[in-house]
């Protein structure tokens, strides 16, 4: 009887200790009390967006963030500005932006946010001058060094496709956008330095928002340039449709060397079929996860902004296999 009582008393003490510990853990969740607004970029569930959404949602859950409010702008810079203003009006703890509108467009708004005690941080497309100005207030960057990412993609294209001086290439990208265009520029510059003749084509806003609209455009380009040896892009959505483009233009895998970016489900088919030769993996999951973490450590613990280069390398038809389940799950 005495041993049973002792056992029951020990079990009760253990239960109380466990309840206290979990209460303590719950109360100490770093993100508790924080509301974060986050610009996701395009449309919900879209290739270049899905992994960021997943990363951000999982970071918010892991850190116990009260509310993560996702904003989708269809990749339109002026919509990103409007949505930043709406986020500012809501006075959250932190706002995560993307650099597509450029530092000039964001400058006064970020200043206002920081002056009002809101942490602002950046992902996917850099805002170097703003990061330099507000780093101590938590302005970090989680994304690719865009120019270097484009360069890396081009180097793999040159090596894999045995591209040589005098070959014709086309780079399809958003060259007009401030820092975001550095990605395409890096790709095009690297091909040019290798002696290729590079044609730079601008992605329109319609295609930017709906990449399927690019299929007839690019198919027509390919058919009108029979000597074309390489196509490069740093637009995730366009990468996904390039296999369709080449099929429609009557090309076989390997006829044209293709370099792209991101690992959308549509891009898997492109890699597996051999139409897409290399795609820059910018670890979009981390571009969603890290800014949320940045928000929490800066809002709660006043830590400065950190820079994380998420440009890991390129994925090729040889390495895509193992990643397929993770891509389908919206993680890679």
């Amino acid at each position, binding site marked *: 009887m005495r041993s049973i009582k002792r056992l029951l008393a020990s079990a009760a003490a253990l239960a109380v200790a466990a309840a206290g510990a979990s209460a303590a853990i719950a109360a100490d969740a770093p993100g508790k009390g924080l509301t974060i607004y986050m610009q996701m970029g395009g449309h919900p569930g879209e290739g270049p967006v899905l992994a960021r959404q997943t990363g951000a949602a999982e970071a918010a859950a892991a850190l116990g963030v009260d509310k993560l409010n996702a904003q989708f702008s269809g990749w339109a810079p002026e919509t990103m500005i409007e949505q930043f203003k*709406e986020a500012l*009006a*809501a006075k959250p703890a932190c706002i995560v932006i993307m650099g597509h509108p*450029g530092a*000039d*467009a964001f400058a006064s708004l970020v200043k206002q946010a920081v002056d009002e005690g809101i942490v602002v941080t950046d992902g996917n497309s850099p805002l170097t001058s703003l990061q330099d100005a507000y780093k101590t207030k938590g302005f970090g960057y989680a994304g690719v060094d865009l120019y270097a990412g484009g360069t890396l993609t081009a180097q793999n294209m040159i090596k894999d496709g045995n591209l040589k001086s005098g070959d014709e290439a086309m780079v399809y990208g958003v060259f007009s956008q401030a820092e975001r265009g550095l990605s395409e520029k890096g790709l095009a510059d690297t091909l040019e330095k290798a002696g290729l003749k590079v044609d730079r084509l601008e992605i329109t806003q*319609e295609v930017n928002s709906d990449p399927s609209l690019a299929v007839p455009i690019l198919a027509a380009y390919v058919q009108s340039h029979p000597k074309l040896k390489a196509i490069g892009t740093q637009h995730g959505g366009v990468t996904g449709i390039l296999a369709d483009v080449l099929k429609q233009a009557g090309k076989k895998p390997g006829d044209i060397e293709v370099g792209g970016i991101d690992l959308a489900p549509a891009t898997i088919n492109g890699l597996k079929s051999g139409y897409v030769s290399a795609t820059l993996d910018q670890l979009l999951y981390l571009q969603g996860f890290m800014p949320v973490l940045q928000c929490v450590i800066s809002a709660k613990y006043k830590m400065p902004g950190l820079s994380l280069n998420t440009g890991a390398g390129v994925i090729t038809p040889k390495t895509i296999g193992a990643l397929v389940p993770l891509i389908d799950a919206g993680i890679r």
Partner: protein
Amino acid sequence: MTPRPRVRSLFQIEGLPIIVVFALILGLFMYTAPEVFLAPNIYMTFLSTAPPLILLATGLTFVIAAGEIDLSFPAVIAFSGFVFAILFKDYNLGWIAVVATLASGALVGIVNGYLIASIGIPSFIATLGTQFFWSGIATVLSGGKSYALRGAEDTSVWWWIVGRFGDPNSYAWQDQLSIQALWTLLIAVFLWFILNRHRFGEHVLFIGDSNDVSRVVGINVVAEKIKLYTLMGVLASVAAMMLTLENKNFFGNQGQGYLLTAIAAVLIGGTSIFGGRATIVGTFFGCCIIWMLEAGLVATGLTGAWVRTVQGLIFLVSIIFYLFVEEPQRRAEFFARFGRRTDSGGRDPVGKVPARPARESLGPDPKS
């Protein structure tokens, strides 16, 4: 049972259905996101971002009232925005840039009006073509690039068009009230009087009812339509300037996101897609609903995938509610289709339309 006089007069308030929908949605957001919608800051934000949409939708109200459509105004936002940015920034032309921008919008409008009214191209096709043309011109001229208007806030043009009433260095909400909200309100009120009290508005509604009858009664349909599209072009150019100055940036593809939102705002506001009936008050509140919808849903914590679903639902509910209130004939037919109780407590057979009021007989009564 006919409504009592007080209730009847209530239903005669212009735009009442959409005002009720707006109030309900606003109330809902105040409940689901009180930290945002019970504070003044979000409304100050709307006052600095919604004016371009309100101007576009107000102009579109006239166009749709005339039984036409204009799909080219997003291109005016880009084209006129570029004209303004380049003259303001590169040539420092200040107020001359403003006049030139208005002229560029008027030019697009006059071309549209001529193509539709004089040549006779259907407005959907004509303005679809000009939308591609002018946005293409904007891209060609700008090289697809964006222009940052650094130092714009130090100019009188910026202050008079989009400046703030309060201390420029203050972030307090009462200092953030934007002058463009006042201009937009004044323009909307002015155009309400034009639509409802001026001959031009009367002509627009007549044309919307019937082009042929309008000609018979002596309305110069061609001239009125050209004026109509010119008005739309000028309003779009004002919207372009406000957008460009507010952002202190010209973006190469700005304006693309306004096409469907402006049309939706007009239609859920109660203006008839078939022409002949229009309400600027309805359009105004339609804009308010559309503009706050996504912000409210995001603040409530709804994930991105749900936003479009809820938007579509609210649009449909708004239009159905409007039809119910404003069109008693449709309401009666709806209830008749699903049966309604008679005074004795029995049900009318399903599908039987209620007896119409007595009218002058134009022939034998089919029931006798």
